C-alpha cells in the first residue's frame, strides 16, 4: 500500500514523487509532466491524484512558524496536520475554527478543498478563517494571498484543489475554547421531517450539529437516525486531551470487502438502536465528538482493494426534503447501503472560494463499497436527482462525476482557468474539464 493514493483507493494512479521539505525549495524543473501538491491523501477520489504525472509531497513542510497564544493566530507550513495543530493549541485554550471529520488532513489540503464541519451553520468553511497564505507558482513567483492582498488569487486558491500553485504556508485565526471537552447530546429520531425540525431548532442553540442516517430504513422510517449536537463545554477542567492517534488499525487488505449488503443492513439496524433512551447527554473529549473514525487507523481498508466511493451532495433548501427522500429511497432500494451516511444542514455564510462546495442547503455524505458498474449506476441515479434539484457534488469526495455534473455544480468553473498554474494538473481536473493536461 503506497502513501500516494487517495483515501477511497479508487481510481488507481502512478506517479513520480518529489518531496518538498523546505519553504525555500523550488518546484521541480519542467520535465514535460504536470505536477500536483499532495498532502496526506485524505480526499477520497482523484482530486489528490495526478496519474502519470508528478506529486509534490508536502508532508515535509511540517513546521510551525508563529503562534500568538493571546490572539489565537497561528502560522504554519502547508503540510502540518490538523491533529498536530490541535496538540499544540488545545492545551493553550484554542481550537480549530472549522474541522472536517478527520484530523489527519494537512492545513493546506483543508484550504485547497475549503473544508467544512459540524459548525458550518455558525462558522462557514475553513476558508473564512484563513487570514493569509503564500502561493508558490511554477515560475518561481511567490504570492502572499489574503482576503485583501491578491484577493482574486485567494478566491481561486481556497477550494482551488491545488491547481493554482503550491501553498507553502498558511495563517489562520483559531477560536477560543475553555477546554478539550464537548457537551454532546444524541437524539434518536424516527423520520426525515424530524431531522429538519431538529436541525432548525438546534442551529440557534448548538455550535455543532450533524446526523447519522440509517440508510437501510424505508417507508415511514426513511431518513431516521441519530441527531448529534454539541457545544464547547464551558468552564471545563482542562484535562489533557487523549492522544489523537489511532488506537486500532486495519493492518492489511482483507481479500474481499468486509462491507457488503447484509453487513451494512445489520450495522445500520444495530447502530440506530445503540442507545435505548431517545436522548442521551454526555461530556466527551473532542476527538470522540469530531473524529470517531480516526480511532481506527486505515479504516478504508475494510472496503477491500477495490476501494470505496464517497458521495457528497448539497441540495438547496427549496428542494432539500424531497430530494433527500428520493436519494435515500434509491439507496435503500438498491440494497447496497452505506456504512456512514451523514446529513447536515449548511448555514448561509458565503464560502470564500471560487470552487467552494458548501452553499445554503442540506448536505448528505455517503460511502459505498466499489462494486463496479452497479455502484456507478446507482451514483449516476443520485447525480440525476441532485442535478434536478439544482444541487452540487463535492470534488474532494468524488471519483466519477461527469463533466456536465461538475459544470452544473460549479457554474463559475471557467473563471478558475486563468489562475491554474500552467504546469499543474490533477486526475480530477482532466476528468471534469476535458483538458488533456
Amino acid at each position, binding site marked *: 500500500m503506497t502513501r500516494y493514493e487517495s483515501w477511497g483507493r479508487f481510481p488507481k494512479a502512478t506517479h513520480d514523487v518529489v518531496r518538498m521539505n*523546505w*519553504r*525555500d525549495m523550488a518546484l521541480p524543473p519542467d520535465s514535460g509532466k504536470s505536477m500536483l501538491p499532495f498532502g496526506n491523501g485524505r480526499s477520497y477520489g482523484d482530486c489528490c491524484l495526478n496519474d502519470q504525472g508528478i506529486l509534490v509531497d508536502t508532508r*515535509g513542510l511540517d*513546521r*510551525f*512558524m*508563529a*503562534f500568538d497564544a493571546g490572539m489565537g493566530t497561528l502560522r504554519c507550513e502547508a503540510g502540518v496536520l490538523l491533529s498536530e495543530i490541535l496538540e499544540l493549541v488545545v492545551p493553550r485554550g484554542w481550537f480549530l475554527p472549522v474541522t472536517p471529520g478527520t484530523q489527519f488532513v494537512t492545513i493546506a489540503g483543508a484550504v485547497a478543498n475549503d473544508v467544512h464541519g459540524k459548525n458550518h451553520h455558525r462558522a462557514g468553511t475553513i476558508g473564512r478563517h484563513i487570514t493569509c497564505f503564500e502561493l508558490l507558482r511554477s515560475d518561481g513567483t511567490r504570492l502572499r494571498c489574503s482576503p485583501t492582498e491578491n484577493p482574486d488569487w485567494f478566491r481561486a486558491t481556497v477550494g482551488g484543489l491545488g491547481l493554482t500553485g503550491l501553498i507553502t504556508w498558511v495563517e489562520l485565526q483559531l477560536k477560543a475554547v475553555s477546554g478539550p471537552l464537548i457537551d454532546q447530546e444524541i437524539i434518536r429520531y424516527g423520520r426525515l421531517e424530524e431531522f429538519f425540525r431538529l436541525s432548525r431548532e438546534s442551529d440557534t442553540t448548538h455550535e455543532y450539529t450533524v446526523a447519522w442516517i440509517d440508510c437501510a430504513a424505508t417507508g415511514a422510517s426513511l431518513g431516521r437516525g441519530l441527531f448529534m449536537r454539541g457545544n464547547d463545554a464551558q468552564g471545563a477542567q482542562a484535562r489533557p486531551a487523549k492522544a489523537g492517534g489511532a488506537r486500532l488499525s486495519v493492518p492489511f487488505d482483507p481479500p474481499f470487502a468486509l462491507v457488503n449488503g447484509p453487513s451494512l443492513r445489520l450495522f445500520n439496524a444495530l447502530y440506530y438502536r445503540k442507545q435505548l433512551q431517545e436522548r442521551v447527554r454526555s461530556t466527551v473529549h473532542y476527538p470522540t465528538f469530531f473524529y470517531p473514525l480516526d480511532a481506527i487507523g486505515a479504516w478504508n481498508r475494510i472496503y477491500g482493494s477495490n476501494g470505496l466511493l464517497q458521495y457528497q451532495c448539497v441540495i438547496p433548501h427549496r428542494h432539500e426534503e424531497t430530494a433527500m427522500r428520493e436519494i435515500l429511497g434509491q439507496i435503500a432500494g438498491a440494497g447496497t447501503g452505506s456504512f456512514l451516511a451523514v446529513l447536515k444542514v449548511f448555514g448561509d455564510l458565503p464560502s470564500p472560494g471560487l470552487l467552494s462546495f458548501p452553499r445554503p442547503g442540506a448536505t448528505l455524505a455517503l460511502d459505498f463499497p466499489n462494486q463496479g458498474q452497479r455502484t456507478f449506476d446507482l451514483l449516476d441515479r443520485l447525480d440525476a436527482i441532485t442535478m434536478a434539484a439544482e444541487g452540487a457534488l463535492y470534488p474532494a469526495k468524488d471519483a466519477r462525476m461527469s463533466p456536465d455534473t461538475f459544470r452544473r455544480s460549479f457554474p463559475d468553473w471557467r473563471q478558475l482557468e486563468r489562475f491554474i498554474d500552467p504546469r499543474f494538473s490533477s486526475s480530477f481536473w482532466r476528468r471534469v474539464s476535458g483538458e488533456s493536461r
Partner: protein
Amino acid sequence: MRKVLIVGATSAIAEATARLFAADGDRLCLAGRNVTRLKAIAEDLRVRGAAQVETVALDANDFSQHEPVLSQVAQAMGGLDTVLIAHGTLPDQTACQASVEMTLEAITTNALSVIALLTLIANRFEQQGSGTIAVISSVAGDRGRQSNYVYGTAKGAVSIFTQGLRNRLARIGVKVVTIKPGFVDTPMTVAFKKGALWATPAAVATRIHRAMAKGEDVVYTPWFWRWIMAIIKAVPESIFKKARL
C-alpha cells in the same frame, strides 16, 4: 533545563530530535550550513516550547571554525551541557571507488569533522565534569560491505572514537552515546526503495531523546538492528567476503 547544541541541525533526524528537546522546554542552539533553514527550524522549535533557540552558521569541514563556534554557542546559551552531532552525507560508493578525492571528502565530512568536534567538546565537558554527548553513527560502521564501505569506514571510525571517549569520560560522569540507526526515511536516503525495515525520523528521534536522557552507551534504532548486526558480525570473513552485500 538542558543547554543543547545540535550540529547538522537541518538533518531530518536532528530536527525530529530537536522537537523533543523543545517540548521539554530546553535551550537549543542549531548549527549548520544553511542559515535560512536553521531559522525555519528555530521558529518551529520556539512555537513548540523551547526556552531559547539560537542558530549559528557552521561548516563542519572547516575545522578552524569549531572552537570559536563552540565558544559562541556556550556564551549564547549561558553554558553547554548536551550535544548531538548529526551532520553527515551518504556518499556514492561507486563514484568514490573511482575518485580518491571523493573518498577522502566523504571520510572528512563523516569522520574527521566529527572527531575534531568531539575532541573539543570532550575537553570542555571533562573540565566542567558533566555533560552528554550523542553522535549519530550508523549500523553501516559495524562491518565493511562492498556496497557501502566508504561511508561504513567513516561511521566505524566514529563508533570506535566514541567508544574510547566513553571509556575515558565514564569515570567523571560525562555520558557518551553512540547512536546506530538502520534505514531511516530521510532526504538523505530519498533515492532508495523503502521496505519493512525502514523507520521514520520521528521514531528514531524518540529513541535518541530517551537514550540521551538516560545516558545510554550504544543504541541501535530501531531496536532490531542490534540483532541483525549481531548476526552480520558473526558471519566468518571467509564466507562474508563472497557475499553480495
